[in-house]
């Protein structure tokens, strides 16, 4: 490996070194004791460079952003509070369904700050308080926090222990003070709590759950300290409590009954009227509690809105003296007159979105209504007090791929002509966030990308004759200039300005964002499916969106009430027709969240982003098995398994059926019943026999089952080898020329079970009660190859399976630490085939098909190590040919991605490795795995809310592409053994050229000299 030798001294001496050379310790450790003979020296230095190559994945400061990109998102907005008055920076505070609280720049949509709460800490409400805090209530009223408005620092946090689950409200009264201390009221867990705004101290608490009151609403009486708490006892009794806001004492309590019974869908209208539905959902009840006197009226809904069918719903909007009722695909806006009469102000289509009322000058209210008209979106701001008056009426053109408007929030401002202007923050169906002002979209945020469900990749189009490279590349002069700049940088002659120019040039290197396939396979399309059922294609070069598609067949329809997206698979990958055919992907969805809901299949062109074909609702889909066969159009055969374990073959063509039937005797699959603790194996029995079946449906036959004892074991984690993984060497040469054959099979399943108590969070079980059992199961025959118990260990388990090894992470209760274990399995039945020479010359009989029905002779080696971090996701690098050494990629609890060399997780590590083992690269045994700060792939960044890390091999063997997603997206390129097969990107060709020129010049000059000398000699 010549490159490291050349580049090492250069980079060490010239670069600004924020990361030390990580391998230096290793070199010292691996170096021989002084008494070692000189003959060994060479091999040591070979080893030295080897270890540098394998462990040094660190990055220099100026390399950040060269091959990685990071995108920050917040998710689908559910609350928004504007902060525009009397502040230099106009901002909007939002909370999202991904449990993010963020402050956005209202001018550009950038994030000022954001805080990602835990996965179970969903936000119930946010409010601005006293011009300096953002108060958030989360965890169903369990946690109240105050954040500093300008920078998002947490000021205080109060944990509110309620007695039983209930609705959660946050109330920041305007002028409720105790000793100059403003109060914040929070309701959650059946308790109303007043908290000091200075330090979050709890001032008083009133428990309503004890009085079996189901609190529906908490309101402050306008202009006084009285808090009204409204709720139901049972289904028919209505209770109203008047509470002194300063000390929590009950001033007044009144009950009344309504025989029809209340449903739990209620709404407060204009501070003194509660609107509710009755149990049947057909009668509207208004409860007027003005001044503490309760008056209940009812009115059938059909009297108001005419004929309707289906569910009726009160929309949780605050519209002044109005409320919105959703019935029969319409939203009826109903106003409550002062006498308590109900009048329908307007009926709009249910695809419309309505904002809360916004008070602006002198008690006037503005309400925004957004609805779709053809391809455009109509934004209307109306006067809440007088519905017929339009304050604003604008038409905005919004990309059709964003779907319908889901939510709208409005904010007012004073125009230059001193009239009132309004801007609207719009949340779309694809979860994107738009700011609309003066009929234009000011900015857009693609926040759908915060909820990625699944990712696949496709290649970019092949460079065609028509597409010239030079178009993207600059002219020769620019090219030369760039290289001269780089040369200056390398020779340390560059001025700071030059350095900036070099950095900028590197970052926007057009090479990496080109829309064609590259030789190294670094440029690809990431096809990403999000929770909003939208498909995005991201360019791996810079992360920009190439196309996006709101999948039409996965949108809400009559046949499909709550469609969800599940997975995305590569469907067609053209190799033979790569020039004129586009690859396509298969998107699998479901009509409902439940497993037995009908499935939806959609086929999408990966270059144009258009839906080619869709089918559905079809049979339910439990799992999708991509088969290793393709038809003549290079469509991959897929077997979709339904809940009855019947297999459905796609594509539905005669040709595919022919291929499938030929191979069907060798197709096996399995199902894991996690709740039951049973794993079953199946094979194809024959065509379906039930009615309305077609030729593409196949009945299963039970082959095997593994039943875990329910009282002592519960399945908590599974892992399988990746189907697209390539294993380069089948054997491992041990010390003393010994050979071990890896047991390599794609039909292996790793299962971890834990005792029922130990399968929950840490602390739920004592070490005596906890045990963790791991299994390696062959999924064709159901044989258990290996079983091992870890006493005193427990969930959560994260595992990764690759080649012939599995690595898993769990918690050891006895040692109070996380551990990682490795199991490597070797095939003993081929052990007598130890002739290395035969293996090398290819005489070895490795091409004979192996059968799972042969009795395996497996030797397993295992070893455990402590690991400091808890883990969110774990994966392994994949390369094109599987030659490059492997690294584990660990998504840590700190939302970073850590690379850990597989060599640290070698079961053969021993305390004092022999000389031969050392040369082979066996690291001396330590009890814990090292966390090397330089090997964080995410360097200084955080992939907030990290959920998974995927790796994709590049065409270049040394390199793998890594994509980590959570709320944020992060992409980088990783060379686990350094780029031994190519020059680095910033290799200075100019320097090379200069050297050659200098050499040539030197040759010429010396030649002239020697000629002259010769001449002189002759003249002498």
């Amino acid at each position: 490996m010549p490159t490291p030798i050349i580049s090492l001294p250069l980079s060490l001496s010239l670069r600004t070194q924020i990361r030390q050379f990580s391998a230096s310790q290793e070199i010292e450790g691996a170096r021989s004791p002084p008494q070692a003979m000189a003959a060994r020296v060479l091999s040591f230095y070979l080893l030295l460079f080897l270890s540098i190559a394998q462990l040094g994945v660190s990055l220099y400061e100026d390399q950040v952003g060269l091959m990685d990109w990071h995108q920050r998102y917040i998710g689908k907005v559910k609350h928004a509070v504007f902060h525009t008055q009397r502040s230099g920076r106009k901002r909007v505070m939002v909370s999202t369904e991904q449990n993010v609280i963020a402050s956005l720049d209202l001018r550009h949509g950038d994030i000022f700050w954001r805080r990602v709460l835990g996965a179970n800490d969903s936000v119930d409400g946010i409010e601005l308080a006293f011009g300096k805090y953002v108060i958030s209530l989360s965890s169903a009223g369990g946690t109240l926090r105050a954040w500093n408005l300008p920078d998002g620092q947490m000021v205080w946090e109060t944990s509110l222990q309620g007695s039983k689950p209930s609705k959660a409200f946050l109330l920041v009264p305007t002028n409720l003070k105790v000793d100059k201390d403003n109060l914040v009221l929070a309701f959650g867990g059946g308790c109303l709590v007043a908290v000091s705004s200075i330090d979050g101290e709890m001032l008083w608490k009133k428990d309503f759950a004890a009085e079996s009151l189901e609190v529906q609403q908490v309101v402050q009486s306008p202009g006084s300290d009285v808090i009204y708490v409204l709720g139901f006892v049972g289904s028919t009794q209505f209770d109203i409590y008047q509470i002194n806001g300063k000390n929590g004492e009950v001033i007044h309590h009144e009950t009344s009954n309504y025989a029809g019974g209340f449903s739990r869908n209620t709404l407060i209208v204009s501070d003194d009227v509660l609107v509710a539905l009755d149990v049947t959902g057909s009668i509207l009840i208004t409860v007027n509690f003005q001044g503490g006197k309760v008056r209940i009226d009812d009115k059938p809904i059909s009297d108001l809105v005419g004929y309707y069918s289906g569910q009726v719903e009160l929309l949780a909007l605050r519209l002044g003296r109005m409320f919105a009722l959703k019935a029969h695909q319409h939203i009826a806006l109903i106003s409550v007159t002062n006498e308590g009469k109900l009048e329908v102000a307007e009926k709009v289509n249910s695809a419309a979105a309505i904002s809360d009322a916004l008070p602006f000058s002198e008690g006037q209210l503005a309400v925004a209504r957004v609805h779709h008209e053809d391809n455009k979106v109509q934004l209307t701001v109306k006067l809440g007090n007088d519905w017929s008056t339009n304050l604003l009426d604008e038409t905005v053109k919004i990309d059709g791929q964003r779907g319908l408007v889901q939510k709208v929030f409005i904010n007012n401002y004073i125009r230059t002509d001193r009239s009132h202007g309004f801007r609207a923050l719009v949340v779309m169906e694809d979860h994107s966030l738009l700011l609309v002002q003066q009929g234009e979209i000011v900015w857009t945020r693609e926040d759908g990308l915060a909820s990625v469900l699944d990712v696949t990749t496709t290649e970019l189009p092949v460079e065609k004759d028509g597409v010239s490279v030079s178009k993207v590349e600059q002219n020769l002069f620019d090219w030369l200039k760039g290289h001269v700049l780089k040369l200056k940088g390398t020779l340390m002659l560059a001025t700071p300005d030059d350095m900036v120019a070099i950095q900028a040039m590197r970052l926007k290197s057009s090479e990496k964002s080109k829309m064609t396939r590259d030789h190294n396979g670094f440029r690809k399309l990431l096809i990403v499916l999000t929770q909003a059922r939208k498909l995005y294609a991201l360019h791996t070069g810079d992360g920009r969106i190439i196309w996006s598609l709101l999948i039409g067949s996965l949108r809400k329809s009559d046949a499909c009430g709550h469609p969800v997206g599940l997975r995305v698979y590569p469907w067609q990958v053209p190799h033979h027709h790569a020039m004129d055919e586009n690859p396509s992907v298969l998107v699998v969805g479901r009509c409902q969240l439940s497993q037995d809901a009908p499935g939806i299949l959609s086929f999408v062109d990966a270059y144009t982003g258009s839906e080619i074909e869709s089918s559905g609702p079809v049979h339910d889909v439990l799992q999708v098995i991509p088969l290793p066969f393709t038809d003549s159009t290079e469509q991959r055969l897929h077997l979709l398994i339904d809940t009855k374990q019947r297999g459905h073959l796609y594509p539905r063509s005669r040709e595919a059926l022919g291929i499938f039937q030929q191979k069907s005797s060798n197709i096996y699959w399995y199902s894991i019943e996690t709740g039951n603790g049973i794993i079953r194996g199946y094979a194809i029995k024959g065509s379906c026999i039930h009615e309305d079946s077609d030729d593409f449906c196949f009945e299963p036959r039970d082959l095997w089952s593994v039943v875990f004892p329910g009282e002592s074991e519960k399945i908590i984690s599974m892992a399988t080898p990746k189907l697209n993984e390539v294993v380069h060497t089948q054997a491992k040469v041990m010390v003393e020329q010994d050979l071990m054959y890896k047991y390599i099979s794609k039909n292996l399943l790793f299962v971890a079970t834990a005792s029922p108590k130990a399968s929950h969070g840490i602390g739920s079980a004592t070490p005596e009660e906890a045990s963790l059992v791991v299994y390696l199961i062959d999924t064709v025959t159901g044989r258990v190859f290996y079983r091992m118990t870890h006493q005193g260990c427990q969930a959560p388990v994260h595992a990764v399976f690759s080649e012939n090894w599995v690595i898993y992470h769990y918690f050891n209760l006895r040692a109070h630490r996380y551990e990682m274990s490795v199991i490597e399995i070797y095939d003993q039945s081929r052990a007598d085939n130890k002739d290395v020479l035969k293996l090398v010359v290819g005489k070895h009989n490795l091409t004979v098909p192996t059968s799972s029905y042969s009795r395996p002779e497996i030797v397993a080696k295992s070893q455990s190590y402590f690991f400091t971090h808890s883990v969110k996701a774990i994966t392994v690098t994949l390369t094109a040919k599987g030659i490059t050494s492997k690294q584990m990629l660990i998504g840590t609890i700190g939302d970073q991605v850590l690379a850990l060399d597989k060599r640290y997780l070698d079961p053969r590590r021993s305390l004092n490795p022999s000389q031969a083992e050392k040369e082979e690269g066996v690291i001396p045994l330590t009890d814990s795995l090292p966390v090397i700060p330089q090997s964080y792939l995410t360097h200084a960044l955080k992939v907030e809310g990290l959920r998974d890390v995927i790796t994709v091999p590049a065409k270049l063997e040394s390199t793998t592409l890594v994509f980590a997603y959570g709320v944020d997206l992060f992409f980088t390129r990783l060379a686990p053994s350094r780029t031994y097969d190519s020059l680095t990107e910033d290799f200075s060709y100019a320097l090379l050229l200069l050297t050659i020129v200098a050499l040539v010049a030197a040759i010429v000059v010396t030649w002239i000299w020697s000629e002259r000398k010769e001449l002189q000699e002759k003249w002498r």
Partner: protein
Amino acid sequence: MEKLMLILGLAMVFVGLGLSMAFHSDELLVEDEEFGLEGSATDVPYARPSQPTPTRKRSSDPDSDSKIQFSLEHAFGESEFSPAGTFTARLKTWSQGAQTLTKLRFSRNSLTEAEMEQFQKLLQGDDFYRIRLPSNVLNPPGRDYIVSSVKARCLPRDGLDEHFVIHTEGVNILAVNYGAPGACPYPRQLKLPSKWAFNSYTILKNTEQAPRTPVFTEEITVGENGEIQVPPPEKSFWAKYWMYLIPLGLIVMNAMTQAMNMPEEQAASQGQQGGAAAQRAPVPAVRRR
């Protein structure tokens, strides 16, 4: 005298032998090896192949309260499961109340004519021969049956060779690895057994305990990187920088020899042209051209 002694000695030997032969113990000998193997051991070779014998009613034995038996059922392709044999094992109860199975023994029913025919059909069609066991041996079938299957063509050798590895956890059976005792190369050839009888090998397997994670104390200092830092002995300057020094030395030597040659040359040319001219010599040479 010597003869007398010899006779006496012989007589004593006979008496001793006679005495020992006269004692007949009335203890019921439990033939341990009859139960096959210690099941808890994991890496023991196979049990003796048990010849198909009719099932013995062990449950009626008054001594066998700790003995249990459970049946093996088989099916040919898609047929219904029918009894095929009986496993007998000893249930050992530990002081903590945990129960484990040991000493597994298997007796297979001989195949009936109909079953033989069915099996032949399986061989013809390369179909599955399926077996099942209860998942709980105390109250069979437990939550569900443990099913396993094998391509029928894998079994025939001389007779029908089968191999069971039964994975147990207390009184529960988790899984059974069932198949031929050796290899079953693909594609499978049709071969009829010469003898229609099963040779069964059984192993009882319990879970392995994971090796404990090694815990090191401070005798090995662990660096910040977690790697072992054996404090490296300070190396001499030469040992550290030899790779720079050797080329440097070579260059210096090269330069030295050059320098040595130069004065010689100069001295030679000085003798002919004089000192200063040697330095300027090329310049006039250019002019001359």
